[in-house]
């Protein structure tokens, strides 16, 4: 018996139609069951307080274990906190597509607030805010604000300073390394804070920097970390959205060579129990909670720049949710004695904890960028007794004196 091609196709199309029809039937009961639910929801909304819908746009996948992951944790926090809040997320949104996604979130999802969580979305967020004056926009890490567009950011430079202190106290080679994503002011600020922290406990410590030109680039980060170790660095901090550097440190520790690493953004100590000393963590939850509460209560003010640090509990010290410092390294840090003008002889551990407490009280109590600070070409940048202003921090494009090399293309 011969079956012709056309018969096959017809049969196939028929099967497909049956399949679709089957699905269609499946659809009906679910829709029916949804309908009363929706009615109940609406009733609830009219009787209870007004509801809010917030859209979150992430630049990476939520599983990146760095930036987008941290934002998503913040989103989950507010979701469980506020019963009147509904959220929708869109991940891995290229800058080129951001405007289209915002259009959708406003037009179709009817979001009241939209959070765009990457610097690269700035111009598109400004355009969207112009287009939809009734929707509130919050752009993370940017600097453009309008009547319905605010900005918010949590910065980690203080934590890098504390990490630098620990690195400076623990290093054997006096050479510290930093695997860095892109030469932008934020990163320069973090590298400088790390170097200044190291200098505060160890005047001989210097910092080498390797640029990988990627926020998400585990392969490049691994390579850069290996290169720094080969050049003699034994303490590594980094800015990259995966635990790649921590894993390199752990691998060397397993082979008997102690490499100290500092976890970035998410708690990465689990990836390197023998290597991770401490790290920087960011809690966006508190910030999102406050912003959404303001929006809900009508007290939202987009002209206010939200810039949260240790004082607001946005920046947190530690590489795991349980410890600020890996217990394994507490003893060596307690043994490392430092002679300071302010406190006389004090252990590195006590000094770190003291500084952390002071940071929590506010930048006017202690801040890493207190003068005198000069760049690595000998020019004075922050005068004695002065503190870098926020504008200085946001446009920082020089290396402090114990960072080696030059910022690429800093023309």
């Amino acid at each position, binding site marked *: 018996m011969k079956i012709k091609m056309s018969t096959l196709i017809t049969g196939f199309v028929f099967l497909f139609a049956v399949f679709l029809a089957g*699905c269609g039937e*499946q659809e009906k009961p*679910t829709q029916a069951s949804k309908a009363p639910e929706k009615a109940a929801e609406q009733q609830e909304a009219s009787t209870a307080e007004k509801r809010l819908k917030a859209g979150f746009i992430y630049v990476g996948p939520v599983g990146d274990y760095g930036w987008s992951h941290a934002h998503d944790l913040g989103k989950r926090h507010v979701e469980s906190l506020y019963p009147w809040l509904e959220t929708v997320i869109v991940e891995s949104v290229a800058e080129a597509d951001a405007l289209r*996604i915002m259009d*959708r979130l406003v037009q179709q999802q009817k979001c009241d607030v939209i959070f765009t969580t990457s610097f690269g979305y700035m111009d598109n967020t400004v355009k969207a805010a112009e287009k939809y004056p009734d929707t509130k926009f919050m752009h993370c890490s940017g*600097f453009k604000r309008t009547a319905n567009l605010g900005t918010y950011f949590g910065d980690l430079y203080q934590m890098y300073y504390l990490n630098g202190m620990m690195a400076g106290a623990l290093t054997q080679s006096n050479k510290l390394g930093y695997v860095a994503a892109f030469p932008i002011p934020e990163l320069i600020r973090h590298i400088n804070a790390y170097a200044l922290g190291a200098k505060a406990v160890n005047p001989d410590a210097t910092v080498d920097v390797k640029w990988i030109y990627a926020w998400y680039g585990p392969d490049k980060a691994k390579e850069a970390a290996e290169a720094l170790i080969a050049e003699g660095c034994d303490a590594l901090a980094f800015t990259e959205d995966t635990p790649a550097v921590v894993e390199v440190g752990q691998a060397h520790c397993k082979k008997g060579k102690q490499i100290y690493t500092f976890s970035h953004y998410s708690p990465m100590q689990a990836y390197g129990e023998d290597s991770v000393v401490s790290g920087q963590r960011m809690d966006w939850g508190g910030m999102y909670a406050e912003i959404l509460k303001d929006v809900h209560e009508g007290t939202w003010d987009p002209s206010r720049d939200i810039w949260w640090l240790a004082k607001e509990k946005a920046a947190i010290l530690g590489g795991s949710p349980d410890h600020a410092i890996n217990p394994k390294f507490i003893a060596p840090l307690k043994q490392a004695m430092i002679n300071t003008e302010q406190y006389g002889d004090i252990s590195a551990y006590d000094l770190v904890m003291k500084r952390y407490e002071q940071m929590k009280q506010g930048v006017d109590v202690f801040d890493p960028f207190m003068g005198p600070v000069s760049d690595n070409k000998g020019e004075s940048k922050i005068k004695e007794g002065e503190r870098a202003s926020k504008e200085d921090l946001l446009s920082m494009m020089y290396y402090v004196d114990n960072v080696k090399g030059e910022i690429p293309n800093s023309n």
Partner: protein
Amino acid sequence: MIRIITSDRYNITPLRSFMTNIAALGAGILAISLIFLAAGVNPLYAVCQIFIESFGSIYGIKETITKAIPLILIGAGLTLAFRAKFWNIGAEGQLLMGAVFATWTAQHLGPALPPALIVPLIFTAGFIGGALWGIIPAILKIKYAINEVITTLMLNYICAEFLTMLIVGPWKGKTRFGFPGTDPLPDSAILGVLPGSRIHYVTLILAIICSVGLCVLIYKTRFGYEARVVGENPDAGKYAGIDFLKTSLILMAVSGGLAGLAGVGEVAGIHHYLGYPASVSSGYGFTAIIVAWLAKLNPLFAIASGLFFAGIIVGGDAIQISLGLPAATVEIVNGILLIFLIMGDYFLYNKIQICRSRA
């Protein structure tokens, strides 16, 4: 006993070709449905959502057309190269090079010239940029017999790194606070859009003209005939005295040039500045390979297949926003559709018979 007999099929009609594609798409959607089913989403609802989002509303259609512009331009250009069996995998790089040339032209000549002059200039510059990047592998292939799949693919990376070097280095804008990227293009070089949309119509018109023009070039001119002979029967081409170098250079200049035009459209029509390679193009150079293939290497059909794939990309938003599935699902959907389309070709060129033989 059941046996499957395959034999070559000679009577390939356009209708059969069309029906095979439809059947392949249907089978692909069926396979995708299984994935949706596994993720706990009603497949009919999911597939409907994808097409409603892209073609079911004015807004969706506008976005679909915006996305289709680069896909049509590049896809049409690729049909010419693929006709001659020149496997140009480097459209992404050619697009970026076009964007680089256009940005340079706009930044240096834009402030002094009116839009009527600068817009044709940046498109010319973009075409030249893409064409130059396209003819390098053509020379390497014809003169030194170096595989063009490798060279075009690798030139993508070289171009992406070159662009990155420019935007973190000498071209870094003063208005970008140290972030990589050029300053915005001068206003005169920014392409107009249809009101209420992001459709930069100059590029759209250009894309349609190019598709029609290429169709004439391939089917009605001596050059088109030579290009097809080079692809289908190179030995016959050699005996007939076709200049392989000249033919390859022209077809890669056109193919690369059209990708370059797409780059101009993206930079001057959408972004208005030159940023990271990934933000200039979201992989259009690669998606366009599927577009050319779905168009059966006919540049005119590339308009339809470009719109179709743009629809899938735009409709892909639904996968995340309405269905709450991860972003990677969109890529999976695209990949599965391509595999089924290619598998469909097998049934087009081969006759399959299932026989029950009495042993």
